[in-house]
């Protein structure tokens, strides 16, 4: 069984659980064919693996199609407001070390309105697992371009094409000092669950970008990564300690200028993926490997997984230290203070 050090303080389940335990009686209201279904099913069937009590699990989301997620998870949950889930979850996780707290967010929710909270959650390294459903579009508001849409995107709000350059969410996360950064795809359940497993093991904030198909407003956005004919060529699977291969006959090498580039097998030595490297430089370079327009050679898997002080653990330590040094606070003494005078009857 996998060990989950990040869940050390979370009470263990009494017995084995099944995916069914995590389903609610609520009718799921995503469009038929939406990638969110696959993610939900993958998460529901993954949760039993954690071996923790269901009631100690909380899903917090913002607003968007993806953010309806908590309603379908039979755990504690909050569907909050647009972009603010990382902040809300931070308060919850920081005050309750006995909980496993998950954030579900979309590309608009996390990177547009909630960009500030996302970067600060990442730098603080609170014990949170953030699942960013990236469909490169605003689904719930019916199809405007998002901060991850490609330049020139034609949508209702950009009939002549969008003008602004997109974010690369993983580059952004690494720039924001994220200690865990991964990417996976809605349709690859096995891979998705392996990434969830790594995220759950990680102590601190984990950012998992999940490429999710919105079949209504941005259908086929990740088709190249899914089509049997193209996917092997397009996907670069990262495994810690393994050479980084691109399709059957190429690999990633470090060029003379220090930059990563793709070369035929036999030319140079393959980069061996080190997710635990203390420098973020190579992980950052890997986030830039994909062709932003075509998604050719898109790395998936855990790009970065390093240990860093965890905010909520340190916060609890400070409380314990204060109590050790000063004794448990005593209200009467606090209110009286050091300088008083008495008025007699």
């Amino acid at each position, binding site marked *: 069984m996998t060990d989950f050090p990040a869940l050390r303080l979370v*009470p263990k389940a009494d017995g084995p659980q099944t995916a069914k335990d995590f389903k*609610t009686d*609520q009718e799921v209201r995503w469009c038929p064919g939406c990638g969110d279904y696959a993610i939900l099913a993958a998460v529901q069937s993954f949760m039993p693996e954690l071996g923790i*009590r269901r*009631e*100690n*699990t*909380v899903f917090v989301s913002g*607003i968007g199609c993806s953010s309806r997620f*908590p*309603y379908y*998870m*039979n*755990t*504690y*949950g*909050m*569907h*909050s*407001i647009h972009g*603010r889930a990382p*902040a*809300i*979850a*931070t*308060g*919850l*996780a*920081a*005050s*309750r070390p*006995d*909980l496993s707290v998950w954030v579900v967010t979309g590309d608009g929710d996390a990177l547009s309105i909630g960009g*500030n*909270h996302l970067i*600060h959650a990442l730098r603080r390294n609170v014990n949170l697992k953030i699942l960013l459903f990236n469909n490169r579009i605003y689904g719930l508001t019916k199809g405007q371009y998002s901060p991850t849409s490609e330049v020139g995107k034609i949508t209702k709000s950009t009939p002549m094409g969008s003008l602004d350059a997109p974010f690369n969410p993983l580059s952004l996360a690494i720039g924001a000092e994220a200690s865990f950064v991964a990417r996976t795809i809605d349709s690859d359940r096995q891979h998705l669950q392996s990434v969830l497993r790594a995220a759950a093991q990680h102590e601190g904030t984990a950012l998992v970008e999940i490429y999710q198909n919105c079949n209504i407003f941005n259908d086929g956005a990740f088709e190249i990564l899914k089509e049997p004919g193209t996917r092997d060529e397009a996907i670069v699977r990262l495994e810690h300690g393994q050479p980084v291969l691109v399709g059957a006959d190429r690999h990633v090498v470090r060029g003379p200028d220090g930059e990563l580039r793709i070369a035929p097998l036999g030319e140079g030595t393959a980069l061996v993926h080190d997710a635990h490297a203390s420098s973020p430089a190579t992980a950052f370079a890997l986030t830039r490997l994909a062709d932003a327009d075509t998604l050719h050679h898109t790395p998936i898997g855990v790009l970065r997984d390093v240990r860093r002080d965890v905010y909520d653990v340190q*916060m609890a330590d*400070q*409380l314990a*230290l*204060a*109590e050790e*040094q*000063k*004794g*448990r*606070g005593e*209200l*009467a003494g*606090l*209110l*009286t*203070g050091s*300088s*008083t*005078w*008495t*008025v*007699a*009857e």
Partner: protein
Amino acid sequence: MTSQVDQSEAVDGPDGERRTGPASPRSGPQDGCGRAAKPIRRLDRVIIRFAGDSGDGMQLTGDRFTSETAAFGNDLSTLPNFPAEIRAPAGTLPGVSSFQLHFADHDILTPGDAPDVLVAMNPAALKANLPDLPAGAEIIVNTDEFTKRALAKVGYDRDPLTDGSLEAFRLHPVPLTSLTLEALKDSGLARKDAERAKNMFALGLLSWMYHRPTHGTELFLRQKFAKKPQIAEANVSAFRAGWNFGETTEDFAVSYEILPAKLPAGTYRNISGNLALSYGLVAAGERSGLPVFLGSYPITPASDILHELSKHKNFGVRTFQAEDEIAGIGAALGAAFGGALGVTTTSGPGVALKSETIGLAVSLELPLLVVDIQRGGPSTGLPTKTEQADLLQAMFGRNGEAPVPIVAPATPAECFDAVLDAARIALTYRTPVFLLSDGYLANGSEPWKIPDIDELPDLRVEFATEPNGPDGTFRPYQRDPHTLARPWAVPGTPGLEHRIGGIEKQDGTGNISYDPANHDFMVRTRQAKIDGIEVPDVEVDDPSGEARVLVLGWGSTYGPIAAAVRRVRADGGQVAQAHLRNLNPFPANLGTVLRRYERVIVPEMNLGQLALLLRAKYLVDAQSYNQVRGLPFKAAQLADVLHAAIGTLDAEATR
């Protein structure tokens, strides 16, 4: 200022008039060297204002004098007034920082309208404060700073100390800087460092003049500069030199004695509004048995609460300095979902950012304290000055029908009780609650009778532990029939897993619902819950029972209003006074009270926000008296307003 309004004693005299007792020769506390003791005159109250450059340490000087005065046992009230800039350009009018202290042998209500004594550290301080001085006031000036250049900088063509323009005042020209340098010539300090102790010289002089105990200040200085003993000793030396200067110089012929005030029996300390509020939050945590979680983003004048609470981790208090106000309240709400006493502290601009999350808290029906230390607005406005212009923002500043209870303390010390009341409402009714303080309460201070902690309200809550629906289900929106509060089931409770959110939910089950009838019902129920909050009746102070004019206030205007009422009554006028601490919901008897009087006057430091609410709700012709100068009302000014209102009614009656 104690809260009861006693008419028989303690009438604030008209400006500048001091009731003086006979001068009696008696030796001062530190007179041991056989000098002929100077006469001591007894006063019942004094208003002192220390004024100087922002870099002159006037706030510290005022704080120290206040602590000495509190230790002596006078009643007191303070008004710090400083620029928003940390170091505004030296020697300029905008750079002037001042601290006013009113202290007395009886209970007083305000920091006083006009200073009896002004300490002016430079020409700018003199010029900025002179208009507030009544004739006959004493002015102590630091003559060393009255150079041609310094005078020119603030537009004095001639030296006001010599041109006769200050004839109406009792001027004490004192070379404070050179006297300080002289006193510290053997200290080994560089001239610049030695000069900085001149505020302590001034403090020593004033401490001599008013017979303040000095031990506390010496202790304070040694603690403050514990790491720099040379500086500590220099400050102590300057402080003592100032005292001795008063003792020996001819210019100060008398000193003054103000007896301790006869406050209700008990143990007292001096406390500012922000400190009282912080202690209230710690106390609310202790009394509720819930860990306090403060999510906050720094903003004047609320930051002190974040600083203070950060010191009390040994009470299990968690403080979180967020990336912005939205995250501050978001984290507090997240913690509340987890069973903490969630708190967020801010000022008006921060409230604007928090609005959406407050609306979410209304919809989630979770307890949350939103503390707004109001300052001058709109926008950045006057960060360091006071105003009451966020009432309507607190009341209505959200999308949809999103009622939020509002509690407003009336005095600095009352901030403590107001927090406990706000926490009671939040925890009992599962709702966000606004606490509206302001810059004047936050930084002003007064004696506080330290409460017996066993007598503080019991705020314990019961989390839900059992399913409450049919077939063992949990219904997160099944309400208590009496309070209409919903159960608070915290994560970790088996069997009560549930999802809540900002989308409209079905009554009882909490499931998403867009049903028209359900929404109508939920909107009305959330409103009914707030309307049904139990708040105490508003008390009316109308000693004769014959007043025809009622003056009604809220928040920090209490002191000036009550002082004005005393004045009017001392002049034989009849006026009733009432003050609101609960602004949403209003006390149940408020309508009856309002209708009992022919005239209702509502003074506010805004353009009539409470008056608007009263008119809308009770259809009474409440009349506003407004001021938005960033400063509290003056008692004399309000007394004139009340006199005028009484006069108009009398005139109508005799017509």
